[in-house]
């Protein structure tokens, strides 16, 4: 098999009975970049630290390369796991210059080759001229790259990254992210990234696990989790969505704006998720008279427009291109462009079309 890392049933309580991590199971393939995505406090960092061996899980196994690292009576100390870790605050050794920081992990390389090897990595990262600087004298982005260089240098098969881009400003974040993704792919390593930034997870990872309150709610490619969220939490956490209570009959359901197609057959009360960009608005025609809406506000953002439309005392958001031009107060018809996604766990009553921003 192609699996590099496997965690199964990882569970951790700091203050019983509240489980910070609750039966977390997922796998990371070789050469894959995998992301744990979730709001702060959802247990993603604890999961990462259990994989690294900094925390002991109460239950569950961690298996790397078919070797059990944690589970039952087995517990491999962090230093014997061969897993790289990049910390949120980088944790560069302040008393060592950049080159010595990178050399730090090269203890299995013969002494005379260490510097050479560290320099190679620094060059690859474009940090060559900083080799003798102290970590204090580097910018946030440079520190970030040194931290990664230090983790990569011993060539571990897996690198864990804990919110590594959150300390960078927006401009730097995008470029650093791209660079590092390329570096990881070129080095043939697998990476497990923890983040609360959905955009980061979507653009950085090959696959994403969305975590909430200690549990994984969905695992999939960025497209899968975005287009076909399994639960209401996933739908709301990944971007903006319209949550709609509807009556489903087989492949379609009846909603405020008429009959919509469903992504899978269902019956009875369901909660649907439709992304604002999967809706459009049109001039009403005669047969629409039952489903007329009114534009409440218009938010022009250049290449697209966000409309807030009220239909039968409920509101929904619609993203359109800038050619679709209406004004506040216009009476319009809202038309879905894609199938609506049926969410699980619809036993919770929905009071209105909830808009998550």
């Amino acid at each position, binding site marked *: 098999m192609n699996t590099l890392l496997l965690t199964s049933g990882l569970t951790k309580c700091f203050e019983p009975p509240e489980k910070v991590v609750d039966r977390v199971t997922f796998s990371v393939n070789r050469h894959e970049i995998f992301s744990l995505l979730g709001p702060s406090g959802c247990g993603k960092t604890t999961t990462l630290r259990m994989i*690294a061996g900094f925390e002991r899980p109460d239950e569950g196994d961690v298996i790397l390369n078919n070797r059990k690292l944690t589970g039952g009576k087995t517990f491999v100390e962090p230093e014997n796991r061969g897993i790289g870790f990049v910390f949120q605050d980088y944790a560069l*050794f302040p008393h060592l210059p950049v080159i010595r920081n990178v050399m730090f992990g090269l203890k299995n390389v013969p002494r005379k080759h260490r510097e050479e090897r560290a320099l190679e990595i620094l060059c690859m990262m474009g940090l060559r001229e900083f080799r003798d600087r102290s970590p204090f004298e580097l910018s946030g982005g440079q520190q970030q790259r040194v931290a990664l260089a*230090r983790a990569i240098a011993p060539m571990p098969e897996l690198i864990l990254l804990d919110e590594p881009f959150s300390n960078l400003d927006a401009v730097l974040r995008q470029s650093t992210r791209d660079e590092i993704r390329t570096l990881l792919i070129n080095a043939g390593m697998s990476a497990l990234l923890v983040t609360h930034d959905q955009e980061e997870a979507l653009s950085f990872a090959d696959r994403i696990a969305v975590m909430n309150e200690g549990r994984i709610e969905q695992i999939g490619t960025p497209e899968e989790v975005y287009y076909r969220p399994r639960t209401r939490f996933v739908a709301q956490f990944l971007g903006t969505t319209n949550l709609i209570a509807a009556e489903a009959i087989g492949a379609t359901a009846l909603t405020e704006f008429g009959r919509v197609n469903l992504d899978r057959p269902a019956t009875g009360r369901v909660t649907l998720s439709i992304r604002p960009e999967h809706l459009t608005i049109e001039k009403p025609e005669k047969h629409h008279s039952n489903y007329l809406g009114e534009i409440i506000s218009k938010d022009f953002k250049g290449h697209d427009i966000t409309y807030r439309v009220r239909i039968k005392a409920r509101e929904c958001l619609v993203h359109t291109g800038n050619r679709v031009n209406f004004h506040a107060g216009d009476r319009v018809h809202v038309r879905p462009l894609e199938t609506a996604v049926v969410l699980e766990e619809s036993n919770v009553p929905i009071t209105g079309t909830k808009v998550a921003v």
Partner: protein
Amino acid sequence: MPAILVGISVLVPLLYLLLRAFEADSELSMELVFRYRNLELLYNTLLLALSTLLAGTLIALPMAWITTRSDIPGRKILTLLGVLPLAIPGYVMAYALLGFTGANGTVAMLFGIDLPRLSGFSGALTAISLYTFPYLYLNFRSALAGLDPSLEEVSRSLGYRPRVVFFRVVLPQLRPAYYAGALIIFLYVLGDFGAVSLMRFETFSYAIYLQYAASYDRVYAAWLALMLLTLTSTALVVEYRLLRGLFFHRIGSGNEKRANIIPLGHWKWPAYIFVTILVLLSIFLPLSTILYWMIEAFDAGQLAGLRQALSGSAMASAPAALLASALAVPLAYIGVRHPSRLTRGIERIAYLGYATPPLAFALSLIFFTLNAAPILYQTLSLLIVAYALHFLAEAIGPVRSSLYQASPRLEEAARSLGYGRLKAFFLATFPIMRNGLIVSAAFVFMSAMKELPITFLLAPVGYETLAVNVWSYTAEAMFAQAAPYALVILLFSTLFVGLLFAKEWTSR
């Protein structure tokens, strides 16, 4: 593990103190406990402690206000002058007072005026107050500087005059600082041996010494030590009670403003006179007395003795400093990295060793070694261990704050790069702690150099240190012989204060 060992080594000797005290049959014990003399000692001790506190407050509060809130020129130098008396240990102060007054004192020799010799209560009070008021001063100063000036402005806008504001708004906020400083002074007076013995004022500490050294009545000495310990713990409990719930943080956000400076106008002159008198008494008097006696009767033959005492002090203090900082590392480490009730408790024990009056502590160590390890009795090693345990609290502070600078992530990073637990600590955390370790070793070294009562009881027979020599020469009114030792002690304790001050200065 090492942390628990430290805890045990502080607690077990104290247990022996109990054992020794209860060795006496119950009838004798009752007699010893309910002696009238004990009441006398209690009265003397409390009288001295409270008077010192009062005197210290009367000196420190105006001094702190002048140096933080007034526009008096030269505030930085004045601040230094307010701290410098810390460099003159109580027994050196007592030496100076004794050498200054009296029929053969400096004043009589130079001007022919026969000042009555200070002794007893007034002598002890003067010597200890002049030495200890900086503890209160430092606390008052930082509290005054940290007060939120808006509170005062609000009170003014609500119609209160500045003087009323000071008493109704400023003073109440100084309470936590005052209690903390007062506790230090109180504990110091309880533990002081040098000044009270030279001034011949009988407090518990002095009585313990007399019992032990003069009449060899160890059971009564143990009882006295226990009473002193009870007094100490009462002080600690009272302090804890008073401080509970007293947290005066700034409430609400807003820019931090600097305290308002109040122009003194003509009040400048009384302020200067106050400071001048204080400096004359607390710094100039001891320094000039020591120098006078040095010049008056300098004898090159003394140098050999001085060298011997210096090396005696250093040979005990240097290993003690190393030992204390080494012990401080695991204690601070568990306290910072694994905070819990247990680890906090273990850390507290280190402070217990510090708060225990030195004579009681030394006495308990004597009983312990005589019973458990007689080979150690009267050895240099025992003295070193005693210093280290007693001054451990001084070592923990700097080690702990340096540990806070080393993020636990650093050690984790080292472990993820393949280093074991211990190695990760030494490679990643230790280098960052190094400065803190040096500072704490320096603190302990300089404290031990001037330590008197522990040395007195625990040093091997005939072992000479600077402090012991100052004390014994002064006790026999041989002021000229004592002078060079006092001067060297001043040198070391000035370094100590300099270090304290440098830390305080850089941390703001």
